């Protein structure tokens, strides 16, 4: 099956920035600014949730359960976004819940990225067994409904934060490797690489000095899009009860608990969903902005690659 070339791969092209590129200051990219601000805020909160949280996210207060947000009738400024079925403060749980999503998202990408980069470089430059292996795995990866695969793996490994990181890292590097590989294949034929070869540069020097700098940008863009995908997938796994076990707050888990109370308390389920959306949109903007910034040849309005990797399954 020719999934590989039938698939409209994201048009993230390798590009050497023209020497006299128009000055593209970061501030001209309002989307990128929005993305950077959202993601750094989310990261800060995830790293130091204690600073921002008004209350202990685990403290139960049965007397004040199912209280609505402050602006609704019966709400109190003590619980800005209301309380859940055990009287826990939703805002505090929301802030602490960012930890799970961002830890899983960032670590998966931080582990999967370098592995994909390395194997993609080897597969693209050397070919041979590594190439065959990578491409077979990519085919395989594409044939699995991703959430089902992740579910099956979690069922075997058991639920938990680091098991989720493992599952996402193990299942995502192939896509990175494939993108890097196809960039390398194109770069290898370019004149500056051929020139270096003719001058007698060694293989490792060519890869490190001439090819690597040209694939890193497109990989970064791909990784930032994939971060959004992983955060969404993590929330789906947590929602299905395969994520971090309670009482640790996670956005997907909060949503799943809130689902049972939607008749009386819509806010328990509503806010975690909004949080997921905000972070995912922020990450997508970051990816979009990075692409515009790092790849000046790309036409911003012709957005074939928006929304990241077209063929990737997600929740």
């Amino acid at each position, binding site marked *: *099956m*020719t*999934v590989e070339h*039938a*698939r*409209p791969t994201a048009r993230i092209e390798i590009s050497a920035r023209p020497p006299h590129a128009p000055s593209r200051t970061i501030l001209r990219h309002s989307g990128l600014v929005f993305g950077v601000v959202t993601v750094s805020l989310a990261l800060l909160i995830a790293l130091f949730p204690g600073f921002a949280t008004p209350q202990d996210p685990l403290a139960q207060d049965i007397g004040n359960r199912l209280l609505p947000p402050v602006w609704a009738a019966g709400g109190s400024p003590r619980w800005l976004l209301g309380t859940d079925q055990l009287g826990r403060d939703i805002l505090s749980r929301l802030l602490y819940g960012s930890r799970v999503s961002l830890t899983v998202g960032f670590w998966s990408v931080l582990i999967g990225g370098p592995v994909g980069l390395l194997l993609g470089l080897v597969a693209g430059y050397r070919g041979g067994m590594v190439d065959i292996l990578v491409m*077979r795995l990519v*085919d*395989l990866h*594409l*044939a*699995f*409904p*991703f*959430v*089902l*695969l992740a*579910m*099956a*793996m*979690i*069922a*075997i490994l058991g639920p938990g934060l680091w098991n989720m990181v493992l599952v996402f890292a193990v299942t995502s590097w192939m896509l990175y490797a494939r993108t890097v590989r196809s960039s390398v294949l194109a770069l290898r034929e370019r004149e500056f690489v051929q020139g270096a070869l003719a001058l007698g540069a060694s293989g490792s020097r060519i890869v490190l000095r001439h090819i690597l700098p040209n694939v890193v940008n497109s990989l970064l863009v791909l990784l930032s899009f994939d971060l*959004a995908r992983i955060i*969404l997938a993590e*929330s*789906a796994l947590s*929602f*299905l*009860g*395969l994520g971090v076990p309670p009482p640790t707050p996670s956005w*997907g888990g909060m*949503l*799943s608990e*809130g*689902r049972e109370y*939607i*008749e009386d308390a*819509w806010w328990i*389920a*509503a806010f*975690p*969903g909004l949080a*997921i*959306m905000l972070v*995912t*949109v922020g990450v*997508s903007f970051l990816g979009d902005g990075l692409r515009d910034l790092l790849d000046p040849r790309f036409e911003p*309005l*012709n*957005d*074939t690659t*928006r*929304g990241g990797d*077209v*063929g*990737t*399954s*997600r*929740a």
Partner: protein
Amino acid sequence: MRNAYLRQIMQASIVLLNVSIVVFVLVRVVPGDPARLMLGMEATDEAVRAARTQFGFDRPFYVQYAQFIGGALRGDLGQSVRFRRPVGDLLRETFPATVELALAATLIALALAVPAGIYAAVHRGGLLDRALMAGTLIGQAMPIFWLGIMLITLFSVRLGWLPTSGRGSLAQLVMPSVTLSTYVMALLARLTRSNMLDVLREHYVRTARAKGLREIVIVHKHALMSAALPIITVLGLQVGALLSGAVVTETVFNWPGIGTLALRAIQQRDYPVVQGVVLVSAALFVLINGTVDVAYRYLDPRIRLT
């Protein structure tokens, strides 16, 4: 031409073979005794021994795999541990529900996304174009289970218009299929828009304009025809996403499909069922994309020549 088909069938078989190996290994790398894990800690030693023999865990790996693959080829996917019934029967009962849901979602997505994408491309930069693009961005960033729950809150709890869950009537299909369609809809709208933008710049479109064809004919007859091809491919590739999304959607709406079956099987460590669901889903994906490739060759003469 025939060679191309043969090669395609070969490749599809290799993928499926690898899928079967992964599924098989996945279930058997469990630390500890799989029979014990399946039955739980409270099971008697005899029961565990019996299960070990019944599922063949006491035989060498290659024998187990040969049995697994031999059975799968004959349509026998083994016995469910919890339901005490053949996995094939369970899949046959739940699969139609998932296919129904996925098809309804695809139709909704196509019916809304393609016209929206065309409109956005033709009126590029306009207010509606920008609103649509913002909408698709949110559509792709939204967890679909959240959307499902919010739809239930609004249409079932508040307004009482639609039933919250179950399958059978058309009213019960509405919310799950809309929920499942959002992601694909957003993706297709973006894709249609950008493809139309590309195509509208082509020379033959300019020629059509130059010879005085009406814009509506140009857009719908000339441009859409070639913009439609990538849409088919992407739809094929979204089968995996649809199945993944179906797992979540089915959970939200208690839709009795393979997603619900898979989740329950996973929670109860019913490995034969997990194996069956993953294997059949992967086979479906490979089959559909093989068909898409063939259809593509048929629809696009340029590819047929190569």
